[in-house]
């Protein structure tokens, strides 16, 4: 019995072997009855099909490559990738590529199943019976998950360098080492701007951008809000924080509440200082414009992530005569803020503001670490320029993102 099974397996394998190289088949879905009888040319099949595990992934996918059919330009319309979990089939179409393309990544696979692949060159012009020729079977192959994404090795090294530098400088700052941090005019002006509102008896308005708490710019905006709230609490100045995301409202409210408590003025805090307006970008801008025109705040802060509404807000604030301090990491909005605000924190200054305002050594230490990383980047860029000029392009790998 066992021998019989082996015999039939060999027979099947033999039949498959001899039938695989060029099998002219018809694509039943594309057959036009009236043209079925006419002999259509069959493209040569693709060759050298190689299936490999997709590198640096979480398994469950394979990469299929093949050499194009010699008739790629003349006859082929598309390539079909066929897959089966057994060498004898049945094979099902799992993907298509247009002619001229010779790679395909097959996803949604199981890491515990053997897969077999073949690739077919298909000729299927409109209204004509389709013909196809299939390559030999490749397999078995199993997808494998990797424990480290080697494409990101240089990012990993850069992460270690940057984080290491930041942590080292924080440690140095904690040990009492004096750290020099350059003056940032926009941050120095914060107290003065709030003081102006206090003198005028008008409110301070703080806009933490239009993104949610998953954006680091918003987090930076809320951390600065904590510092600003402490000063408004000490000065007994009215603070108004209209926000465009509910989660930002919750977090910002807590930050302001804590700031008022720390300043010894919990009585001056009330929940409605931080209030929700709308998630809609221009609805938010319209609402704030209305508040600015009606209430004429003396000071306006824009700290966070802004898009096209930046100039609408800042110009209205400017027209209302408010002293304005903005900060964003959105390069395309910086020109608008520069044109309309008294002070603008450019890019990284927004992230430095909280540390600068607190003057806490460990926070200032992180700024120095950041500067070190920037110097390292500059050096890498300079070396990269020289490397490219002398033809050593391999060096650029250290700046690639995978």
């Amino acid at each position, binding site marked *: 019995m066992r021998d019989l099974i082996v015999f039939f397996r060999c027979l099947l394998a033999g039949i498959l072997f001899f039938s695989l190289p060029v099998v002219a088949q018809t694509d039943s879905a594309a057959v036009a009855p009236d043209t079925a009888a006419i002999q259509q040319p069959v493209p040569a099949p693709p060759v050298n099909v190689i299936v490999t595990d997709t590198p640096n*992934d979480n398994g*469950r*996918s394979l990469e299929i490559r093949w050499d194009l059919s010699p008739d790629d330009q003349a006859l082929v*319309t*598309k390539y*079909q*990738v066929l897959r089966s979990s057994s060498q004898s089939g049945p094979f099902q*179409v*799992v*993907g*298509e*590529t*247009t*002619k*001229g*393309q010779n*790679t*395909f*990544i*097959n*996803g*949604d696979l199981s890491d515990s199943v053997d897969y077999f692949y073949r690739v077919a060159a298909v000729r299927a012009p409109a209204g004509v019976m389709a013909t196809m020729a299939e390559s030999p079977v490749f397999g078995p192959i199993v997808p494998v998950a990797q424990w480290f994404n080697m494409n990101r090795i240089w990012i990993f090294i850069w992460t270690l360098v940057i984080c290491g530098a930041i942590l080292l400088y924080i440690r140095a700052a904690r040990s009492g080492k004096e750290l020099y941090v350059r003056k940032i005019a926009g941050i120095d002006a914060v107290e003065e701007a709030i003081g102006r509102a206090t003198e005028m008896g008008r409110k301070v308005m703080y806009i933490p951008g239009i*993104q949610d708490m998953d954006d680091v710019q918003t987090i930076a905006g809320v951390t600065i809000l904590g510092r600003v709230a402490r000063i408004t609490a000490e000065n007994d100045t009215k603070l108004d924080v209209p926000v465009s995301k509910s989660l930002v409202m919750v977090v910002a409210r807590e930050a302001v509440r804590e700031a008022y408590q720390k300043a010894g003025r919990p009585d001056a805090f009330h929940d409605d200082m931080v209030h929700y307006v709308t998630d809609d*970008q*221009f609805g938010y801008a319209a609402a704030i414009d209305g508040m600015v025109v009606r209430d004429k705040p003396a000071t306006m802060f824009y700290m966070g*992530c802004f*898009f*096209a509404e930046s100039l609408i807000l800042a110009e209205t604030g400017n*027209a209302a005569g408010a002293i304005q301090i903005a900060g964003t990491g*959105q*390069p*395309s*909005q910086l020109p608008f803020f520069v044109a309309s605000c008294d002070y603008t924190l450019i890019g990284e200054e927004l992230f430095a503001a909280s540390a600068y305002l607190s003057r806490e050594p460990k926070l200032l230490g992180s700024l120095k670490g950041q500067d070190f990383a920037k110097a390292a980047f500059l050096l890498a860029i300079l070396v990269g320029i020289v490397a490219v000029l002398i033809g050593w392009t391999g060096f650029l790998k250290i700046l690639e*993102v*995978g």
Partner: protein
Amino acid sequence: MLKKYGFAIVMFLICLVALVRTFMAEPDPLAFSPVVSYIVIGLLALAMIAVLILTIKGIFVERRWVFLFVGVALVLPYFMSITLKTKVSPEVQGLFNGVNALPPGSKVLVAFDYDPPSAPELQPMADAFMAFAFKRDLKLIIIGLWPQGPQQANLSITRAMAEPEVAAKNLRYGTDYVNLGFQSGNEFVIQSMGTSFRSMFPRDIYNTPYDEIPLLRGVENFSNVDFVVNWSSGYPGTKEWVQIAVDRFRVKVGAGNTAVQAPEMYPYLNAGQLTGLAGGMTGAAEFEMATNEYGRATVALLSQLFSHAVVIAFIIIGNVALFLGKEKKTR
């Protein structure tokens, strides 16, 4: 009363006239002849010169006058029968070349990542692309990372289908194009699409399961699409498509952005991460010109030109005021 609300009333009237203009039947009785158009342009130039003279005399105009001039400059060109042609910039040419190089039958993923407020700038690009792609027999897979994106896509499809050449092709939904709708999750959607489109878009906007759509047969992930076109006005948008689809999955991406956002994409464009970029109304007009699909952006080009001219004139006037040191007096 008139002094307080005069400007608002004038601006309202300008808008009203512009609105009435859009409802005029052909032949348009309000359209200026070329001669009248040039006279109007001359009058506007004279008005600007008058402002300059006032400034030299020390009378510095308020910003509402700036608004008024910009309003007039934006609306008047719509009454003029002057057609302008522009030069296609290398950025837009790159976008066009990227699409034009695709052989018929290529699958293009089109991401509509904007909403109605930015439609005046982005819709003309999308319309021109849609008509061009259909004429070239490209297969379009439409998605939106913004909730309103797929609705904007439907507008473009309807406009393209109205063209006789496209209508004659008898394109079928599901075979020649498909709208997979909106998916929340921002850049994580792009990331997940790198493995499986199906996992992010199990059904199209008409609730048809992914596997029952003929066009999507064999479309697993980015490796099965030949090009990605992204129309974007913010987050998530072109930046996210570049950082994930291009950098991680090596897809070719071309984009159209609002004028406000476009400058931020130049680093990606110069690094070759973006195939091409159309920015703002001017970019849309250039793209219309490149694809030979003239539409609303070309019409708006004159308006764009007038407004730029007015702003440039005011910059000059502002600097004249600065040099004369007569900013104190205001009118």
